């Protein structure tokens, strides 16, 4: 399969994005941001449509748009009198509705919207792989350099703030990192399934390990195996890449859940 150029690009891009998303996934889980990820990924539809309507790169437009949406969600839920899930519910439907209107106005039904919605390995170019690499590098650098502060902030925000941690910066930067990673993963997984890469890996790690080091290592391994195996299945059976990757990831999660030493089916049977 690697003799095909498009598969080389998809695998290279996929593994890069899997590694970066799996680390963010840890913070998505401990900060309970899974629904934020869903909201941002769906809002990407609005961003892609803006790009199509304005004649600029849809992924670039979506990256900017989703960063703004993520900051909006963060701001409204901190400053407003709304819970985070309500803020997400508002932004996500408004952005999707705007996307639908813009696609109609721009008369852009001929653009392959399905590839944005469900992912397409054929859509990946070497330019995309390079972009993914640069963005993944910045994201991972942020997560590693600020790891101790992010962990403190995720565990106990009040004491982190009382210790002089830049909690506002950490919160907003984490949201923007999530947004950008979501957008650049769209070609691989599609708008609908992309948030899986931010939720399932760390959730899988949590089934097996009780310390963040193990959770993150397992999260990275789950992502990399899922992308590689998912892409192979997608190529072999001519399936949408996003669906194949997410199903493999879910399979690993289910196995981890069942054989989890801390909870799950086997423990229930033996206790």
């Amino acid at each position, binding site marked *: 399969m690697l003799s095909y150029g498009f598969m080389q690009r998809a695998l290279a891009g996929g593994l890069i994005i899997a590694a970066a998303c799996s680390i963010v996934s840890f913070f998505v889980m*401990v900060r309970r941001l899974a629904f934020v990820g869903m909201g941002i990924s769906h809002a990407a539809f609005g961003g892609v449509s803006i790009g199509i309507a304005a004649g600029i790169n849809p992924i670039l437009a979506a990256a900017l748009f989703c960063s703004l949406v993520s900051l909006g969600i963060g701001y409204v839920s901190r400053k407003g009198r709304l819970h985070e899930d309500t803020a997400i519910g508002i932004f996500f439907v408004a952005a999707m509705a705007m996307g639908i209107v813009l696609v109609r106005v721009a008369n852009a039904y001929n653009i392959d919207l399905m590839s944005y919605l469900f992912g397409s390995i054929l859509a990946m170019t070497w330019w995309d792989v390079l972009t993914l690499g640069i963005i993944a590098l910045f994201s991972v650098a942020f997560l590693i350099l600020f790891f101790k502060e992010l962990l403190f902030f995720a*565990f106990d925000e009040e*004491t982190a703030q009382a*210790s*002089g941690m830049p909690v506002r910066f950490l919160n907003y930067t984490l949201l923007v990192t999530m947004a950008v990673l979501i957008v650049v993963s769209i070609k691989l997984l599609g708008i609908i399934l992309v948030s899986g890469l931010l939720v399932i890996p760390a959730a899988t790690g*949590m089934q097996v390990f*009780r*310390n963040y080091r193990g959770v993150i290592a397992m999260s990275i391994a789950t992502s990399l195996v899922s992308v590689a195996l998912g892409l192979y299945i997608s190529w072999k059976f001519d399936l949408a890449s996003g669906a194949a990757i997410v199903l493999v990831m879910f399979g690993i999660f289910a196995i981890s859940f069942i054989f989890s030493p801390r909870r799950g089916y086997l423990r229930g049977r033996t206790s």
Partner: protein
Amino acid sequence: MKKTCKVADYFEGKKKDTSLIELEHVFVKRNGTLVLEDITFSLEAGMFLGIIGPNGAGKTTLLRVLLGLLEPTSGKVKVMGMTPKELKSELHHIGYMPQQVLFDASFPVSVLDVVLMGRACCIGLLNFATKEDRQAALESIRLVGLAGYENRPIGELSGGEQKRAFLARALCRETRILLLDEPTSGLDIPAQESFMELLAKLKEEFSLSVVFVSHDVNILARYADELVCVNRTMHLHGKPSEVLSSGRLKEAYRCEFDFLVGHPIPHERKDGA
């Protein structure tokens, strides 16, 4: 113990005329409501101050003002001779324990990881924990009697053990002042006693100053050098014996019921039960 000049200035007596904590006519408004009104008191270094008052009296707000997390609407605040703005770079000298740490029981961190968080402000942004930081964290864990628990997940500890771990986190820096917000809430009486004994011992051993917020007058009366009774405004400040014998203590606690219900209701049961 490394000292930065501003804090060293204070503790080496270069600011002899200033108390450890000074509040002058502090007013705090939140969402248009006055939550603290005309608070004035000072505290000398090495003292154990108990801040008492009923629920919703503004005790936590007062701690947040001392930490510089909340700016007073008016009035003067100085901690170790520094304004809240100046204090921002010296927060590693203050150990803080919030009223409640709301974390998921499965949060994947060990006791050692949690205590190391206390050193984050000493380590500094973009730096990583060194062997010395780990040693300091292990020493704090030992001091609070949790030796052997270093690698246990924090969620598996009992309530009392978790409080000790959070105390170790507050100590695991260049701590001069401990600000503790209801640290014994949710603990049974033996666990409360043991926590207070530990705190008193650590205070003496490391010449710490302690500001302890609680609505439990009894526990503070036995350990505090001074008590401040707050219920939006400051009702009393003095030695525990003076505060407890004052009729105004009852008055301060009664205010809460009036404030909450909006009109006076009977407070004392006549049947002696």
